[in-house]
């Protein structure tokens, strides 16, 4: 499973700096983060100028909230990323007019949500969403799933039901306040319960926040190694 990082976890709102920092790291997957609405336009403008040669897998994280952009305009901007064949990770609670989003086809990638959100938190929630957007793919956020159900049963059910739709994983841990934090023993133990059910070639995108510091490079490398230990050393099984 190729390991990668979300740019937003490395340099908040600054994908260019994040890409520079990650250039020397042993990763071959990247998620370009435009989590905030004002981050999307700069990314949209830079789309053809980014040096992404080392990455076998590229995805984009769409804004988690709409503030100024109309839904139609947001989707139109995202089409440009879909044309690059990059999956576009979307939080289902920003989808109001379902029909608009169908244009993204199988590049639309729905992420399961944490407990703050009104939808998309469980397998049944997601089933309703995928019924309306059958072509969409699935980004499994294991930390969100663990927060919703610490036994990881809900996560297992999501994998069992939507394995064929899986396009990538989000990996980190999440606090009770729903803030992402780096991997820790408890999270690792939880994820080991479900790793064998995941497809072997599924890209793993780390969302562990590792902001700039003198030890940032080392901490990024450690996080990649931890993720590698969890996700790269288990043979996959089918249901």
């Amino acid at each position, binding site marked *: 499973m190729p390991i990668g990082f979300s740019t937003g976890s490395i340099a908040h709102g600054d994908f260019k700096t994040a890409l520079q920092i990650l250039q020397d790291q042993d990763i071959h997957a990247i998620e370009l983060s435009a989590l905030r609405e004002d981050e999307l336009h700069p990314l949209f403008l830079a789309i053809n100028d980014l040096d992404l040669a080392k990455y076998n897998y590229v995805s984009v994280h769409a804004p988690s909230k709409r503030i100024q952009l109309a839904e139609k305009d947001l989707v139109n901007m995202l089409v440009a990323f879909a044309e690059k064949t990059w999956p576009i990770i979307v939080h289902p609670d920003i989808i109001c007019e379902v029909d608009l989003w169908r244009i993204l086809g199988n590049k639309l990638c729905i992420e399961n949500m944490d407990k703050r959100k009104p*939808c998309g938190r*469980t397998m049944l929630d997601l089933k309703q969403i995928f019924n309306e957007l059958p072509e969409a793919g699935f980004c499994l956020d294991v930390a969100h799933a663990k927060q919703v159900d*610490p*036994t990881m*049963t*809900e996560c*297992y*059910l999501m994998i069992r039901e939507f394995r064929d739709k899986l396009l990538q994983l989000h990996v980190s841990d999440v606090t009770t306040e729903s803030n992402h934090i780096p991997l820790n023993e408890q999270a690792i133990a939880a994820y080991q319960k479900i790793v*064998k059910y995941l497809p072997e070639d599924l890209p793993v995108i780390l969302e562990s926040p590792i902001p700039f510091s003198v030890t940032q490079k080392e901490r990024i490398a450690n996080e990649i190694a931890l993720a590698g230990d969890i996700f790269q050393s288990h043979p996959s099984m089918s249901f």
Partner: protein
Amino acid sequence: MHLKEAKSIEKKIKENGLGEPSPAGAFGNTTLSHDLVHYIGGENDTNQNITRRVLLLLESEKIVFSSVQTDGTAYNRVVNGVLGQYVNHDSGLLRPNKETIPKFLFNDMVRFWRTMCVDFANKQKDQGGQKWAMRNVKLRMSRKLLFVKGMLMCFSQNKVHTAPVEIIADLREMVKLHPFELLLSKKEHFGLEDRDIIDLLTYYNQFLSALSDPEKRTHLTNLGLKDAFDDPLYKELKIVGDNFKKTLDQIFIYKKGKLSNLTLKYGIF
């Protein structure tokens, strides 16, 4: 917020003329999921806690307050948490290549059934045999049926287990089912005969018909131990209960098959 919701439920129950929860207080109050999940066995696992926890698995239903929360996420989390404790701390399930049932869960199901039986006798003692008949009929029919569901849940997991999450997911699917729905869904698995299932449904229907008649219900509720065995309605329902038990005995004990094997293997020692 929880108190507000609890009061809202109480109000709805009264407005709809439904019977109020147990006067002994096992229900009709808020309870912490922490106690249900973490106090299984041991000194903190009170009669109330066992009752609430096991009935969560055997006959609970979620109430959704608003259109925002569509699938009872909190409910699922608690159910998964309870099942997780039973499964993750069952040493028998951790042994590789060994066919077994979730014994920790099974033992608690048995303990709950015996607790209901003992509590019935305790109430008889405390209340001098008053209002005995309704409690007796319910124990022999609806309470027993819940125990049947618990047994089926555990016995259906008799296999070599590879992963706790799979067991929890399977058990959780069964939590949603009415005991008869579970029985029917496991008919092929356990090799159950149509005749036995039809008989159980028939006897249970006779029980429900009596209880849904307001006059009969009131009569039974007020009937004490002293007068029960001479009462025509009670005698009729006693026969229904006897037949219900005989059919269950056949399925779980006397007829050769998976269920009787499992009862013999796990049901006593």
